[in-house]
């Protein structure tokens, strides 16, 4: 392919611009990691950019990682990630597939789904509902009530729309059932979108703490984020109290610990995005 001067200039600016963005977005995380390795007292007195740890110390990590609750929380979160994501992705695929068909029920169902993006019963009725189903104080309370995110459902439906009708029609003529069409023909074609949705679900589970905080009573079931949250929130405890706040560096260590595992996950996801691109090429 011939590259013109205009394109070359654009390309240079593009790289510079993106590098700038990367630096600007990297900083907060850099700050957190560096702060987590810093000495609490020196950190307190430090102002301005934090490019390297002030008074290097591993104390915060020692405290965080020696806490049983953190380890147990991590295991709970992994269990939730596996069970909930499997269920969520399957249900979302089913729903999106049906919504992209031309069935009689499709318009009704579409409307029913979209309405829920705007109307919900609110906290108390939702809580009562979960209790009446006997799901409280179990992982079920964290898995079922939020199993489908309508937003993700619509993303996948849009992806299904992008697949040429001819492919499915051909499969139908061959006598393939809906399940086979879905999993053997459509899923591979929209894999990048499925990966995005999976990523959204995974991150959703990883970051969520509120449901756990209201439904779970048994501390042994607490997911990681709830435990971390408690440490962070203790900072804002009642004014009437005379107790010291948790050292900042510990809070930062906790944040680092809770972010790193998700980052390790990324490259695997990204592989699929790239694969998706090749699939797209074959499709034409």
């Amino acid at each position, binding site marked *: 392919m011939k590259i013109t001067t205009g394109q070359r200039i654009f390309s240079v600016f593009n790289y510079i611009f*993106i590098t700038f963005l*990367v630096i600007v977005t990297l900083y907060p995380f850099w700050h957190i990691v560096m702060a987590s390795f810093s000495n609490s007292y020196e950190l307190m007195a430090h102002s301005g950019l934090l490019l390297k740890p002030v008074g290097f110390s591993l104390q915060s990590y020692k405290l965080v990682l020696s806490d049983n609750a953190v380890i147990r929380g991590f295991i709970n979160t992994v269990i939730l990630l596996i069970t909930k994501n499997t269920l969520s992705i399957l249900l979302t695929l089913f729903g999106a597939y049906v919504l992209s068909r031309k069935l009689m029920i499709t318009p009704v169902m579409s409307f029913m789904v979209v309405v829920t993006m705007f109307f919900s019963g609110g906290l108390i009725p939702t809580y009562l509902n979960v209790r009446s189903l006997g799901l409280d104080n179990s992982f079920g309370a964290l898995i079922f009530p939020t199993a489908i995110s309508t937003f993700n459902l619509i993303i996948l439906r849009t992806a299904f729309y992008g697949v040429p009708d001819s492919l499915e029609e051909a499969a139908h003529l061959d006598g393939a059932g809906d399940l086979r069409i879905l999993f053997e023909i459509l899923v591979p074609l929209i894999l990048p979108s499925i990966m995005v949705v999976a990523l959204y679900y995974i991150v959703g589970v990883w970051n969520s703490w509120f449901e756990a905080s209201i439904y779970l009573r048994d501390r042994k079931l607490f997911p990681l984020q709830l435990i971390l949250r408690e440490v962070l929130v203790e900072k804002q405890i009642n004014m009437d109290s005379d107790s010291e706040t948790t050292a900042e560096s510990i809070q930062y260590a906790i944040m680092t610990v809770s972010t790193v595992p998700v980052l390790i996950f990324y490259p695997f996801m990204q592989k699929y995005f790239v694969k998706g691109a090749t699939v797209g*090429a074959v499709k034409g």
Partner: protein
Amino acid sequence: MATDVKNITKREKRKASPDKKPWIVRFGRDIKMHKGAYMLALPVILFYILFCYKPMGGLIIAFKNYAPIKGIWGSSWAGFSHFEDFLTNPYFWRLMKNTLTISISSLIFSFPAPIILALLLNEVRNKLFLRGSQMIMYLPHFISLVVICGMVIQFTGSDGIINDFLAIFGVERKSFLNYPEYFVPVYIISDIWAGIGWGSIIYMAALTGIDSSLYEAAVIDGAGRWKQTIYVTLPGILPTIIVMFLMRVGQLLSVGYEKIILLYNPLTYETADIISTYVYRKGLLEQSYSFSSAVGLFNSIISFILLTFANGMSKRLGEGSLW
């Protein structure tokens, strides 16, 4: 035009095929014909009924003086008094104005940012650079809002980095978050800062789905990179953009309170106090559940009207629809 968009319009037209039989008969036939699809629909419908529609009955507390111990049905009726309280509140118009200012500004500025980023990233040929920069730009999404806002306060403070920079040009130092006129810009810019990378994911995925033969055809027609972007890339991700845009329009009134609460202070109330922060102060801190539920319902209804309108526009323009 890309195939995706054509497909949608095609479907829309085909939907209305006249049939003389009563609907129940047709429905039965439809089920029989697409047994598999209906089977798949069943758990999804079940989910929505059980976990979304069933609790929705609880919206009734907006019309009651809800006392938890008496339960929803045991509490006394309040009629529309909670709605009245909200609409006649002396701060009502200020709240409304601020909410709309923030959400419309974010629609204009924060919404397109990830799309532009995705398009720029699409032009990056170095795979390692691409992956590296993407991964880093997702990071802020995982940092607790409390921390992000803490940094925003630090950076915009009178001895923060932004003032350090402006001081070079002789600009007087000031704490930006103490001036009502800077609140919305700080809010929007920090929103873009924290959300641009994560927001671009969906567009990146849509980009990978574009048929590469379209580019080849464009090259043969003599189109440069710029023209390819205009005639192939953008139309290719248009359905995704439209869907995202529609959902955004539907949420014009529901700006979350968490971030505002962390950033605002009494001095910036006049531009920063919005419906949800008001409800937070009133509803959550004071446990006026019926009141907050009434405001929530008010919000939902307006959002729903907005969305229906936007969806209708989009449909009429032949650009696809949410339902």
